[in-house]
């Protein structure tokens, strides 16, 4: 299958989730005032690096292509604490989470050649590395991965596709932030708590059927938010 068709499918799928409707819901505005106001103005005017695209993609590409340590440090300062927190929420103690977070960031450096901004945002790519580390170290389990696709001859995806993917990713973040607290917390627990739905039920005291329907509701809400934007 042509890489272009897959890329298009990826984008279409992600846009099925993302994007809060305008005007941005009050909760998101209250939580991330700096983000909202920056987006309200033109990014090219207020961003400290006028040519920088959102979502760390330029830094990651300079790490990949130029082996830029400065950009790696910027990525490290942003993502390493998040990865450590993610691992601690997944049941790791602080010292193991620290060790694993460092290893994840070393992997980001060593596997930078595999980063493809047409396939995934920087945050998504680092999330998958951190998740695999969690399965390997915390759960001590093998992780069967799907067969990788042949991505076609052109190494660089179309720049408009890259930009579209980054924008979808950003709006997805806003839509998540705009979810009602209870729904967002359930999705966070499902991803970061390392809990099955039954275990979430035990922890929250909610019946299993309620958990499943609330997660479904939260996902439906994300999809709906995106459709309104389109």
């Amino acid at each position, binding site marked *: 299958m042509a890489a272009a068709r897959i890329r298009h499918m990826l984008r279409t799928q992600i846009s099925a989730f993302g994007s809060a409707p305008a005007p941005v819901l009050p909760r998101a505005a209250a939580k991330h005032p700096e983000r909202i106001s920056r987006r309200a103005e033109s990014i090219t005017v207020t961003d400290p690096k006028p040519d920088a695209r959102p979502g760390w993609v330029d830094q990651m590409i300079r790490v990949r292509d130029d082996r830029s340590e400065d950009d790696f440090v910027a990525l490290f300062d942003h993502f390493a604490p998040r990865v450590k927190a993610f691992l601690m929420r997944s049941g790791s103690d602080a010292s193991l989470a620290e060790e694993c977070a460092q290893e994840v960031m070393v992997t980001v450096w060593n596997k930078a050649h595999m980063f493809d901004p047409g396939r995934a945002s920087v945050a998504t790519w680092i999330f998958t590395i951190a998740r695999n580390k969690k399965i390997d170290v915390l759960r001590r389990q093998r992780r069967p991965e799907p067969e990788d696709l042949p991505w076609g001859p052109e190494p660089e995806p179309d720049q408009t596709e890259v930009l579209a993917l980054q924008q979808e990713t950003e709006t997805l973040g806003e839509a998540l932030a705009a979810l009602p607290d209870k729904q967002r917390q359930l*999705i966070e627990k499902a991803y970061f708590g390392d809990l099955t739905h039954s275990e979430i039920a035990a922890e929250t005291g909610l019946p299993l059927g309620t958990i499943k329907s609330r997660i479904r509701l939260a996902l439906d809400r994300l999809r709906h938010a995106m459709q309104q934007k389109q």
Partner: protein
Amino acid sequence: MTEPTHHLTPQLLMAYSAGTLPEAFDLIVASHVSLCDTCRAELASYDAVGGALLEAETDGFRGIELDASSRSDVLAAIRNEEPAAPAPAPAPKCGDPRVPTPLAPYIGGGLDTVKWRSVGMGVKQSILPTSPGATARLLYIPAGTAVPDHGHNGTEVTLVLKGAFEDEDGRFARGDVEVATEELNHTPVADISEDCICLAVTDAPLRFKGLLPRLAQPFLKI
């Protein structure tokens, strides 16, 4: 290759993305996704949700800080690293094109060299080695044969590798998955034209309705 028409549930794709499934379910999700571009794209969207959660400043992330030496340790590590080796060659493909790539290491050769054990009425199985929490097995259903009527205490996911079967929920051909929960009592019947081989994963023992299969169950690890 024709695209599958029966897909994984959002719950399974999301849990695979989150990395919270037992290995046997990871295996069947990865195997289906290898055959199904629709689920591959949907899985990417769940990975994107994970990325968005990592990027967001969620409540549970506050107050967690790195060790003081963290950044300098990592910088030292990447500077000491050997020059990047060329990308490793992709894992050798299984000789049998009917076996999805993620499944190949679990069964060694191809479908023709599987060591089957009879479970009665011509149906055979082979349990695959995975970590506890769920069981993965290959099922061999001779053409025209019915698997004994059974319900489930937990979830049973079945991926067709060869041939096809039909039950109360429809017809399932190569690449299709059926996700059966507690509510479903079903009697899968293989197509008359061809023997059917499936990958089946369960997180709890099956419940057979007839007495004989029920008595045999503890011995057969069904």
